């Protein structure tokens, strides 16, 4: 553990590490993966996957970096640091076009609200034209979610106000497969989000309690294996500054 991360409360470390590791495991079979801005956990998860679970994974980011060197990640995930050690330069515009051509495999996108159908809302609470709360917007999600092969949504809170029966507004929908939260992983099955697994620090009951709709479980649902020694060591190696903790 680096000096920078020593002050992070233990409960945050446990949750963030579990999420990063699980997100990396989900990437085991991806050909390429992309994240945009405001995405510290995905950036760390991709770096970890390239270190441990899928060394062939091609890593594309919003700054234009390709397979950037791990270890220099910053809290701002669109900063120029995201070109450090890049193997090439492939701009955000290039990535959107690649995605429109059907060649983007895995995208990480945030969702302020996620609903039972796997739809996400990053736009508004209340009417679109006269919003009660104007959210920041979906960034690339309305373009990427329908066209990528696979979208992983992550959230750093799991509560009934944000994981809901039906979004106020659908910013994006289509390829959402997993929703990773501090409690575990939800997965799309038969057109709805179901519990796929829960972290060692959480439980199925806790997920049910904090989800805004009566959620079913996948057939193979169960506890998620805690991060292994090797995974944790690699996590510290790719993210010595503890960027993964910044979202909490």
């Amino acid at each position: 553990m680096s000096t920078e991360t020593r002050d992070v409360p233990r409960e945050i470390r446990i949750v963030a590490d579990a999420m990063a590791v699980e997100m990396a495991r989900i990437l085991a079979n991806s050909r390429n993966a992309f994240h945009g801005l405001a995405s510290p956990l995905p950036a760390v998860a991709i770096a970890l996957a390239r270190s441990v679970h899928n060394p062939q994974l091609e890593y594309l980011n919003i700054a234009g970096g390709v397979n950037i060197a791990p270890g220099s990640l910053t809290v701002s995930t669109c900063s120029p640091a995201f070109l450090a050690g890049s193997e090439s330069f492939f701009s955000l515009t290039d990535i959107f076009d690649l995605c429109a051509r059907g060649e983007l495999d895995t995208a990480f996108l945030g969702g302020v609200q996620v609903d039972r159908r796997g739809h996400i809302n990053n736009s508004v609470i209340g009417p679109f034209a006269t919003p009660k709360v104007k959210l920041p917007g979906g960034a690339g999600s309305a373009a990427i979610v329908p066209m990528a092969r696979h979208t992983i949504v992550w959230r750093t809170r799991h509560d009934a106000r944000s994981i809901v029966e039906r979004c106020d507004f659908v910013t994006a929908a289509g390829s959402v497969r997993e929703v990773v939260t501090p409690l575990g992983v939800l997965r799309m099955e038969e057109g709805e989000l179901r519990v796929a697994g829960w972290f060692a620090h959480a439980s199925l009951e806790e997920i049910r309690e904090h989800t805004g709709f009566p959620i079913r479980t996948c057939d193979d649902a169960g506890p998620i294996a805690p991060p292994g020694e090797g995974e944790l060591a690699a996590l510290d190696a790719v993210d010595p500054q503890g960027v993964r903790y910044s979202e909490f």
Partner: protein
Amino acid sequence: MAASKTMTMTEAVSLLAPGSRTLALGGNSIHRVPHAFVHRVAQRTDLRLHLVKTAGAYDIDVLCLAGIVEAVSAGFVGYETEFGLARHYRSAVESGRTEAREHACYTVIASLRAAAYGLPFLPVRALYNSDLPRARGFEWLDDPYGGTERFPAIPAIRPDLAVIHVQHADLHGNGVITGPKNEDLLMARAARHVVLTAEEIVDTDALPVPLDHVDIPSVLVDGVVHAPGGARPGSCAGSYDADADAIRAVQALSSAAELRDYLTAQGGPA
């Protein structure tokens, strides 16, 4: 030899004639954004701006606080993790002063491409299953060759002015961007007028790439402003990092008057 296109920041800001103007700002989030230009525009009261950007933060927030933003066409408006929400933007939208013309970042790109290609709209393979097309009034195009897929037609956005902060420019207006280029090359092609604000103005031969790799070609550029530190309080790749305290200071302001006092105190002429 072509004439020099250097101008002062005052001249650059005056390229925005009073009234409703569409302004595209280069960079992304808080990185390599022409904030010095933004600060000077924020001191004007005679503008109603339509801002265009894939993902904005401090720039849009400041201009919303200044009360001169009519509409924002963007995919995302907010700081990232460290600085949280763009509260001035948010309150401008929630109070009805500013219209949020929400886009996907890719449809901002399509809007600019349409303008660059001289078209009133461009189809895009995106926005399926989203409420955005209906909310934004985007029409759908059929495939005239019989394919069954349909495509939203994204209306062109032709900025009156694009302002792009570069690390290096020459006197003629050739600009070279170090690091992420964001949508700036496209903005320069879509806009009616283009201004570069530059950390350094150097001889053409001293640009960091040969002329056949220049990012912004002089043909498109109306003016070059020498603006060292011109992206502060944001970052500029290879030159400086973001200044968190200065960003938080502006986030904490709560009126246009406070903002103008603050900017004047910072040393910018009114």
